[in-house]
């Protein structure tokens, strides 16, 4: 799959994952990496950027083992962005499907 295409979709994936609940870095990277063939390392630059844009905030939470973990929580702005991207994605895939299905009438 095209790398640029995947990177664009990655943003939607991360925001959607956080919509289900707060997560820490490894969980996000692992969840996305399991489904999409992409270097998990590229999740972290994305998290940093989305955080800088105010789509989510971070807080530290004690973990049962070792030091506190950095958790990501979606902000209202991030939630709005997720809805926006999800709609865009649905419209886009619906349009593409008409071509793939061959029933573009």
């Amino acid at each position: 799959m095209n790398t640029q295409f995947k990177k664009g979709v990655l943003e939607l994936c991360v925001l959607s994952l956080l919509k289900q609940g707060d997560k820490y870095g490894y969980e996000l990277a692992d969840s996305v990496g399991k489904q999409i063939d992409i270097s998990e390392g590229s999740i972290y630059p994305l998290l940093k950027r989305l955080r800088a844009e105010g789509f989510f905030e971070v807080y530290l939470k004690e973990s049962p083992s070792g030091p506190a973990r950095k958790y990501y929580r979606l902000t209202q702005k991030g939630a709005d962005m997720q809805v926006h991207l999800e709609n865009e994605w649905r419209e886009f895939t619906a349009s593409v499907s008409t071509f793939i299905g061959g029933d573009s009438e």
Partner: protein
Amino acid sequence: MNKTEFLQELYNHLLPLSAEERSEIIADFEDHFRAGLERGKTEEQICAELGNPYTCALQFLRTSDTQQTPPPPPPQYNAPPAAPPVPPYGNRTPQSVNDRRNKTLWGILFFIVLFCAIGVYPASIALMLCPIAILIAAIVAVAFVPTGIMVGLMISLSVFLFSLGLFGFLLTTWLLKLSYRRAGF
């Protein structure tokens, strides 16, 4: 590649960032390794999943706050300044490359004119002196064909040849002087 190697390489490529940003990123990746190890993965496995540390660092550099400063504008083509008006002869000061180039061109012109002058000066002197010869010829000619037309023809011829010689002399002299001054020798 193991954890130490990965973090070392990532760290090295993140050097353009501030120390604060860099240590935060490294801490995130240390957390990532810790969480992966807790789930029973090996360091090598985690590294393989993370991918190339260099590619990863590049993505950080692109999205970093410290990289927000706009890059310097691309070099723009600077139109050469309009040629300054030619100042009066004599008190000109060398100002620009343009000026120097003009001087070189004038210098070349000077030598061309000088070369031509070698031929032009004797010719114009000869032309200006030839009315004397014509005068002698005219005396003989008028003596043999004493008509007004012959007198007019001789006078016209001598005036024309003299003017031609004078014109050639003055033109060459003017060009020589002009190019000599412009060249600023």
